């Protein structure tokens, strides 16, 4: 990703560029503006609307996806930066009838209400579980590491419970 400023200068901001990446295990490509964010590429070019936009200051975490296996906010990265990388969205981790343990834990523990922050919470929750693999995942750790994801419905009580349960089952 070095030389990205050069890239922008070279291509200007009014032309489209082709981005080729891997999303949910499948090769995808699309034409985007150089300043198109990954979240908009995922939602608009690929039609994967499970990744949500909840703010415009990278605070809420509703757009969290996995980038080379790590959770990132898809509004903090340009679509062109995904060139050659692996992106996984909520649609890619499990489906109805074949849920990821973290998805199942959210349903089992009533870790969601309106569902809007939920994809981001699940993607962040998987990240928390993986970062703390082998260690005891305390409530305090979950709360601290969930600081970048905002939920207005649940008061986090059941989200914390869901992530603890999901991590145990992963």
């Amino acid at each position, binding site marked *: 990703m070095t030389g990205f400023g050069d890239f922008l200068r070279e291509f200007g901001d009014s032309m489209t560029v082709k981005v080729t990446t891997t999303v949910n295990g499948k090769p995808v490509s699309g034409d985007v503006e150089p300043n198109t964010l990954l979240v908009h590429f995922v939602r608009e070019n690929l039609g994967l609307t499970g990744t949500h936009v909840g703010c415009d200051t990278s605070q809420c975490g509703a757009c969290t996806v996995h980038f080379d296996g790590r959770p990132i906010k898809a509004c903090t990265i340009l679509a062109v930066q995904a060139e050659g990388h692996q992106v996984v969205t909520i649609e890619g981790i499990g489906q109805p009838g074949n849920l990821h343990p973290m998805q199942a834990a959210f349903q089992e523990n009533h870790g*969601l209400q309106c*569902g*809007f922050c939920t994809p981001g919470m699940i993607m962040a929750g998987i990240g928390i579980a993986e970062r703390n693999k082998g260690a005891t995942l305390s409530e305090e750790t979950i709360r601290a590491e969930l600081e970048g994801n905002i939920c*207005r419905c649940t008061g*986090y009580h059941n989200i*914390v419970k869901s992530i603890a349960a999901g991590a145990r089952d992963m």
Partner: protein
Amino acid sequence: MTVQTGIGARVRRKEDVRFITGRGRYTDDINRPGQLHAVFARSPHAHARIGSLDITKAEASPGVVAVLTGADLAADGIGPLPCGWLIHSRDGSPMKQPPHPALSQGTVRYVGEPYAVVIGETREAAQAGADLLDPDFEELPANVDTASAQGVAPIHDGIANNLCYDWTLGDEAATDAALASAAHVVELDIVNNRLIPNAIETRAALGDYDAGTDMLTLYTTSQNPHLARLVLSAFVGLAPEHKLRVVSPDVGGGFGSKIFIYSEETVCGWASKKLRRPVKWTADRSEAFLNDAHGRDHVTKARLALDAGGKFLGLKVSTVANLGAYMSTFSSSIPTYLYGTLLAGQYTTPAIFVEVRSVFTNTTPVDAYRGAGRPEATFLLERIVETAARELGMDPAELRRKNMIPKDAFPYATPVALVYDTGDYQACLDKALALSDYAGFPARRAAAKARGKLRGIGLSCYIEACGLAPSRLAGQLGAGVGLYESAEIRVNPTGNVTVFTGTHSHGQGHETTFAQVVSSRLGIGLDQIEVVHGDTSQGQFGLGTYGSRSLAVGGSALMKASDKIIAKGRKIAAYLLESKPEDIDFEDGVFRVRNTNKAKSFGEIAFAAYVPHHYPLEELEPGLQETAFYDPQNFTYPAGAYVCEVEVDPDTGVTRIVKFTAVDDFGQVINPMIVEGQVHGGIAQGIGQAMLEACRYDRESGQLLTGSMMDYAMPRADDLVNFDLDVVRTDCTHNPLGAKGCGEAGAIGSPPAVINAITDAIGVRTLDMPATPLKVWTALQAGSAAAKGS
């Protein structure tokens, strides 16, 4: 079967699968072929005259399809946005309602007010066009302050003192007499801080006009799509009601802010008709901060009269409420009938008088936000009661207990117009004190002190009025709409059921809860029931979801419709079983001739109704489908007792909630798991109000200072703790479910518990919300300076 899935069962939510797999369908997820994008030009000033507005540059910008202004709206007969509740002042005069055009004309009155819309092939093209609009603004003096609004220049022509109305409730003479004769009078000045709702899904609208059928479809993030259709048809003039379809698909939280009829939804519908192409707008978060109706914003002076023994004799309250620059849809009712009527709380106070002056300011319109009026009443009452206890040297729990309405006193008529049907406030308090180990607090306080920390404990005993309310009474009080709810149960020929409700779920889990009600009643499995809401072309008229009304009112309509299904089913069964309807029992999904084994299943009856080869066609229509409308006889009165325990670090003012206990009485609960979730979320919002959230405008410029999630402190996971919950149950006496409503309780009961705890910890009399570390630390310094000085 019904034991695991019916009323009272902790059923996992049916709707969850689509949300946890990214298959939810929110308004912004919907796109239509040929769709255009709307970007709104918004006022950068708090108050300004628009001298001239040249739209030619914007129109010529690449990709711009149209630039529309308030003049275009008016020319097309699209009317102002109405306020749906008429309040009268104490002198009998009606409230002063200024016109609220969807796009302002001539004058803008708050930062963010839309004055034009640019519609482009892409959002970027529309934004580039909007950037070229450069109106000639002549700035005018602006006021954002609630308390001083009556003393500044009017922001609307002809509305003197910026006063919308001067409303009163209660017996002023009796209250004055109580204050004059009292052994103790406790006086408290209270600010209820202004809040910004911030549902995580921002508002969005997609207008899609079909010229072939003259049908306008509006996809939008509404808590009450039918009401939106009614208002947009009858008052705004967007389209006749039968030519307007409003669809609210999955909606990502509302908390009140998605009840109202806003400019952007109106404009997207109108522009789609005008341009004959779909027009879409999705708010970015900055627009949500500027434009979604804000909440609270009261400045109050209250006086509580007590006798020598601590009995409450009278309460006098004077409040100034901020309406913002225009009257949002239900704004007038929030600081009046949803506030003043709640001032008896759980107590037997015999004389109460409240006066409310609602004022216009150069701020975003203010309307219902979770609790809506009731949190403001509860905060005032529970702060002044706690203060009274401290000043009288009484245990706050004891003072409350002494004044509580006893459980054998129901129905209980308060001096502020409500009749509580049932409750057991003492039981809630007892349970909350036990669960929070109130008795053990002094030891915990001492232990904290030994560690250099300050511990405090605070109580709050709340009541709310939910499930509003008889339509006739609401009409007498000025409501522009009815307050019933509807339900339809369509039994399909194969025996499964589609349920239509006029309420709307945006997180509350109706697809599960309502299915549990029908499952219990009709004895069929949850997987045999589909609950449909949110599309005016599918379900019949309904009033939506707000004020914790959906189960108490909408669920009751569902019970009525179920009863009609069972009644018809009995007739069909009687015919098939050669018996009489009155001899048919219905239980667990089986119609049976009493005391026999002659029986037909629910599915068999459904099939007979739709394939009526053996059917009493002379007496009975085929089919099995019933509708019901339910109009409540009274409000419901959830109540509870909350205990908050905090620990303050005196060096930094950083305050940590160490334990939060909530005991609520919601009457009959359908799904305890969902109800607990509602309480958790409500408490989080209440703690947010008490400790984190503050909407701030710059007093000079009128600019919104807290216009992003970086400036406005939303509660995050590490700000909160796990909550300890329990319930007391006294069933609502006047609806068939005995249900009271649970959606707002947490946000109503928690703020005073938190502030009572913090003021207890640091030994100050008052502390304005939000109690940030800076405020707590400053109060501590002032306290110790005062102690040194004396």
